[in-house]
């Protein structure tokens, strides 16, 4: 298997990910159904459900929404760079975890039954 070639495909996709925020913006699309923040929910139904409000901020992710915290007002180029950088970091962390898990789980070559 040519792993190198497949990795290149994934890396090219990672660099192209800003399309995933640019296109929705261009076409006036909102976020995904059911993934609204408390403010948007308040606008839709006139209140923020109490249980939701209590735990909505349970976890502070280092890069919420694959963005650079504090760059909300910056140009689209900045947002795009942050988004693509998040893609690269995310795929790297994911791949490293899978490698570690895979090495731990996989049977050694040559040890499999004939």
């Amino acid at each position: 298997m040519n792993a190198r070639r497949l990795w290149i495909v994934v890396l090219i996709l990672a660099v192209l990910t800003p399309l995933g925020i640019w296109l929705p913006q261009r076409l006036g699309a909102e976020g995904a159904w059911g993934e609204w923040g408390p403010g948007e929910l308040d606008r839709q139904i006139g209140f923020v459900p109490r249980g939701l409000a209590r735990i909505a901020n349970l976890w502070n992710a280092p890069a919420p929404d694959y963005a650079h915290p504090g760059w909300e007002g910056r140009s689209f180029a900045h947002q795009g760079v942050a988004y693509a950088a998040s893609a690269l970091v995310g795929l790297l962390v994911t791949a490293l975890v899978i490698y570690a898990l895979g090495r731990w789980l996989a049977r050694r070559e040559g040890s499999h039954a004939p």
Partner: protein
Amino acid sequence: MHIPEGYLSPQTWGPAYAVMVPIWAIAGRKLRGSLSSRRVPLLAIGAAFSFVIMMFNIPIPGGSTGHATGAALIAILLGPWAAVLAVSVVLVVQALLFGDGGITAIGANCFNMAVVMPFVSYAVYRLVSVRAAARAPRRVFAAALAGYVGLNAAALTTAVMFGIQPAIAHGPDGRPLYSPYPLAIAVPAMAAGHLLVFGFVEAAITGVAVAYLARTEPDLFAAPAPAIGGARS
């Protein structure tokens, strides 16, 4: 399709975790018996692909967005149990680092996207591609259909989780405590976007990837695909 923090009541996200723990344990055991170390790089590439492809938000003009998951592709190439592991890792990284999907909802999100989706996709693929040659058009069609059906199955279970919240968790005043929309709204809303748009995106990605890999990496399709039972040692 990533259920955020606070949209599920504890009586939903708790059982979802409780269901996922044994599933993760079984996935680990299945892979211990069947995963060849030669396939670990492909598993990592598949997981990385899944992570990246979920970042391509597909807009419905003036409407909502959705995305493909890559879960069908991983299930086709490496079997459903490998997909359980790979997509679960993706979802955990997304929740922890990027706040995409709630921490409390990790079990639920894994159930929908890392269990329902790969198993449904895999079943469809095996059924439709039975005895097809590596590069047969029917195999590509089977892969595309697997992506379409699998994503829609996951969207349905996700919508049901959203939709049961108002009925099972409301305050004394009757107002919902978590996700506010009932099944009658959640299911059609989720189904429409996935049946009409996002399912076709998953289908295209899965079909194109299988067509490409059947040509460039025919050895991936030469051996019989790992059975759902997993053990092939």
